[in-house]
């Protein structure tokens, strides 16, 4: 009697049908998997970009100015990366290996009131020069813009490791050092040297001085979050030209009054460096009333206060970054 079960022929037919069906499914799986990964990577880049732009918009909208002077600066640097993810030679501004690293800095009211407790008769410390005025300068920067040369080479090899940088630095300004009783003289900065009414440490181009900027590592401060970003590019609104303009490479521009708006353009990639996205957001500056017009003179190469609305040579301002 013939034993029940499959014959070799039946098995071969079944296996053949199974192979045909599975081979039909494989491309479907491949396409589906590829689509899911692509979308997930893009989503990851978009989320990183949104988090960063939301944060930066909120910070920039807190920019203020005081009654004696303004500080609103945009600095611009560019660096050639060595990462294969961004091949050289493409003409698209943010797709090539040229990384755009800006820095934006502005005065911001203090976030707490310990140093701000003035009595009614001391309406501001700028009026009562026996006291110090406390204020934050916020620096929001790109890793490449504010790092030293020896730090930068490693960063340029892996664009996915690039981040934002910078921090809020609290400074006490007074007409006399040590004017504020609770603060060591080293942390109290000369507000101005009479009869010069310019608050030197927030004057254009003077922040790199030992008492002025964050390069000296002093003062009270808190760090701006480090968020992954390949490009952090800030353009300012030129009211007359009705367009956003770039600050030239390796220069800083100090505006007074503050321009009406800036545009932040960022490029983010996922950690695997498979997808990247370039987005921009226009940010209105509530205190901005300026025309955004810059004098066309050559960048000032000296470590001296520069008139507002002129370009300053970054290599003179921050020699240790180059």
């Amino acid at each position, binding site marked *: *009697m013939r*034993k*029940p*079960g*499959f014959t070799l022929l*039946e098995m071969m*037919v*079944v296996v053949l*049908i*199974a192979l045909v*069906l599975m081979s039909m*499914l494989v491309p*479907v*799986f491949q396409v*589906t998997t590829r*689509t*899911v990964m692509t*979308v*997930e990577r*893009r*989503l990851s880049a*978009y*989320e990183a*970009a*949104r988090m960063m*732009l939301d944060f930066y*918009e909120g910070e920039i909208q807190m920019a203020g100015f005081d009654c004696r002077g303004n500080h609103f600066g945009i600095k611009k640097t560019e660096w050639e990366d060595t990462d294969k993810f961004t091949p050289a030679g493409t003409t698209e*501004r*943010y797709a090539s290996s040229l990384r755009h690293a800006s820095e934006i800095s502005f005065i911001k009211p203090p976030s707490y009131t310990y140093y701000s407790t003035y009595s009614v008769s001391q309406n501001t410390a700028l009026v009562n020069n026996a006291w110090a005025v406390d204020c934050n300068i916020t620096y929001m920067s790109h890793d490449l813009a504010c790092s030293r040369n020896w730090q930068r080479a490693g960063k340029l090899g892996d664009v996915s490791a690039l981040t934002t940088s910078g921090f809020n630095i609290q400074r006490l300004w007074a007409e006399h050092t040590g004017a504020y009783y609770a603060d060591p003289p080293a942390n109290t900065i000369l507000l101005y040297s009479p009869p010069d009414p310019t608050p030197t440490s927030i004057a254009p181009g003077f922040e790199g001085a030992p008492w002025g900027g964050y390069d000296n590592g002093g003062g009270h401060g808190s760090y701006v979050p480090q968020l992954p970003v390949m490009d952090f590019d800030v353009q300012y*609104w030129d009211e007359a030209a*009705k*367009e*956003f303009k770039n600050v030239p490479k390796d220069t800083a521009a100090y505006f007074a009054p503050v321009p*009406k*708006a800036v*545009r932040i*353009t960022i490029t983010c990639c996922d950690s695997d460096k498979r997808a990247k*996205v*370039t*987005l*921009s*957001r*226009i*940010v*209105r500056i509530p205190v*901005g009333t300026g025309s955004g017009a810059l004098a066309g003179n050559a960048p000032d190469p000296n470590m001296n206060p520069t008139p507002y609305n002129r370009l300053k040579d970054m290599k003179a301002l921050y020699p240790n970054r180059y």
Partner: protein
Amino acid sequence: MATACPNRKQAPESGMTLLEVLIAMFIFLIGIVGVLAVVPTGVNAASLVIFQDAAIHLSSSKFAEFRRDEINAAVDLQDGSAYLSNYHEPHNGSAEKFRNFASGPGQRYEHFDEIQRYEWKVDQDQLRAVNLGEDELKNPAPVESGGAPLLLTRVTVVIHMKGTSRYMRFTQYMLGK
């Protein structure tokens, strides 16, 4: 005593026929296809989030432009106004009167990925003065009696992904001049 071995008739062994195997495979295939059918839903949801992200950036930028230009929203954002005509993109010919984002070299939205996929408009039906204290909700004006109500204008910016039914609407209240 020897026991006799019953002479049983051997029952047919159980097993599957080719037809059964084919049916099983067919059901299996339907199951696989069913699982795969869920994936596009997830991809679609992720794409929607990407669109929402882009729409948030773009609408935020448009509102920033309106505020930067210190407009009187109730007047300047009406279709055909000098402000919209001179300083913003023209209608792109769509039936819903959308406008493309200016993305040519040097223009405001030049460096926004896939900007050609998006278009925008100010919702003209929603554009109206909502003077606090005189609005339909009868909210009191934030001033003492006798004070003038705030000149607020409700502005709704609509972002649309071209060729789809995806719209995002963003409403803000803007102070008049």
